[in-house]
């Protein structure tokens, strides 16, 4: 109860209507996407009929608010799950996050956003926070907060997204040959490739699902410009550079503890 140590009791002769809670955000629902071998987590933003003008979402007309973050609009999407799949596919292919999805069962449109509109503010001064939203009677749109960073199977500890910034010559399809996974794992744990890297494109990426209890994980790459990052909270601390010395030291400490 370290948190409460510095809370002070309010004297009896003063109003004492204060309450302290522990809290944890709800996890939401998960949607398994076989093609990506991943789970997309989602939660509805608002109750029905809280919506935004289509013009505000897609078209920065003069004088109209330009909504940043629309990454793609799909038409003729049959249902919500198909919308999730298309947005997830698009996000993975384009190497961008997927934070918000809007599906309209009425006109069967599916919009994918790479920013969270849940806490989105309308201007830099936060003067008109949430100025996007309206009560639109009869709207058939549904807004969802999604978690791209948790594109992981339920049985996977976390996903590391490896962006390789090499030239096309150095990557090719033989990425695995110069990617050596050196992990100090407990028994029966093993790294698992859950997505094949694309064979072309400026930013190639390899998604590795690391299963089991991990003490120290390192991705040893012969290419020094490789950077690792993850926005998943489960994957903290974030890794921004490769440091084999630090890994070796951590591994030694880990072995010593055992």
């Amino acid at each position, binding site marked *: *109860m*370290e*948190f*409460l140590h*510095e*809370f*002070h*009791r*309010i004297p009896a002769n*003063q*109003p*004492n*209507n*204060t*309450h*302290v*809670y*522990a*809290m*944890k*955000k*709800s*996890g*939401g629902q998960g949607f398994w996407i076989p093609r990506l071998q991943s789970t997309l987590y989602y*939660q*509805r*933003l*608002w*109750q029905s009929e*809280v919506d935004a003008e289509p013009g505000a979402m897609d078209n920065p007309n003069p004088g109209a608010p330009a909504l940043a973050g629309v990454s793609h609009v799909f038409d003729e999407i049959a249902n919500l799950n198909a919308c999730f799949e298309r947005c997830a596919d698009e996000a993975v292919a384009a190497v961008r996050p997927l934070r918000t999805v809007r599906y309209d069962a009425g006109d069967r449109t599916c919009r994918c956003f790479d920013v969270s509109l849940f*806490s989105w503010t309308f201007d830099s001064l936060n003067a*008109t*926070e*949430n*100025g996007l*939203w*309206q*009560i639109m009677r009869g709207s058939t749109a549904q807004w*969802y*907060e999604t978690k791209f960073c948790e594109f992981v199977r339920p049985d996977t*500890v*976390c996903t*590391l997204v490896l962006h390789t910034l090499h030239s096309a010559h150095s990557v090719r399809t033989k990425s695995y040959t110069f990617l050596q996974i050196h992990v100090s794992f407990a028994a029966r744990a093993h790294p698992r490739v859950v997505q094949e890297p694309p064979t072309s494109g400026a930013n190639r990426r390899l998604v590795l699902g690391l299963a089991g*209890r*991990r*003490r*120290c*994980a*390192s991705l040893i790459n012969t290419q020094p410009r490789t950077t*690792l990052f993850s926005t998943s*909270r*489960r994957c*903290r*601390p974030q*890794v921004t550079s490769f*440091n*084999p010395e630090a*890994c*070796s030291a*951590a591994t030694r400490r880990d072995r010593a503890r055992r």
Partner: protein
Amino acid sequence: MVGSAVLYAAHATIRRGYAYDVGQGNAWIVGVGGLVSRFVESEASKARVAHLVSGYRDTGVRSSMLLGSTPLVYFDNTSPSWWPASLDVSWRVYPNNTSPETSIGLAFWADVCSSWCVRRFDDESEFMELDFTVLYDVANRGRCSCYAYQDTDPHSTHADKNSHAAPDDIRVHFATLVPATLEFC
């Protein structure tokens, strides 16, 4: 367990409630031109909470764990200063006039506060404080504060001290999957 004065004092202080889902999630939306201006149901705002203690206040020492605060705008049976005098007294039945003195009312404000914390700080927020002794203005009473699990100031005297884990069955489940000492190199 051996009873002691310390134990009895702890029992008198900590009246931890069971963990429960706050309900529908009550997110305040202003909307275009301020035309929404109401609490709306928000699944993405939902949280699981557990009451820890009443009658205690953060005196600022934990400020390095504080993520942010917002007024709760509890009317406390007082007409808001901005309420047009020509209108009726329908402000009395607004959700903002819900009394935190009742268990149901307190659950409502806990929902409001946790929703704000989730919306603003996502799962970074692991504690919250509702303080209805704060008076901002006439009929603008109450403050919601969100706190992180760890000290956000590395130079704080509390920097190396974590609190207990938030009450959550999911966390317990993940605890078997995610070791506390994840290290990436």
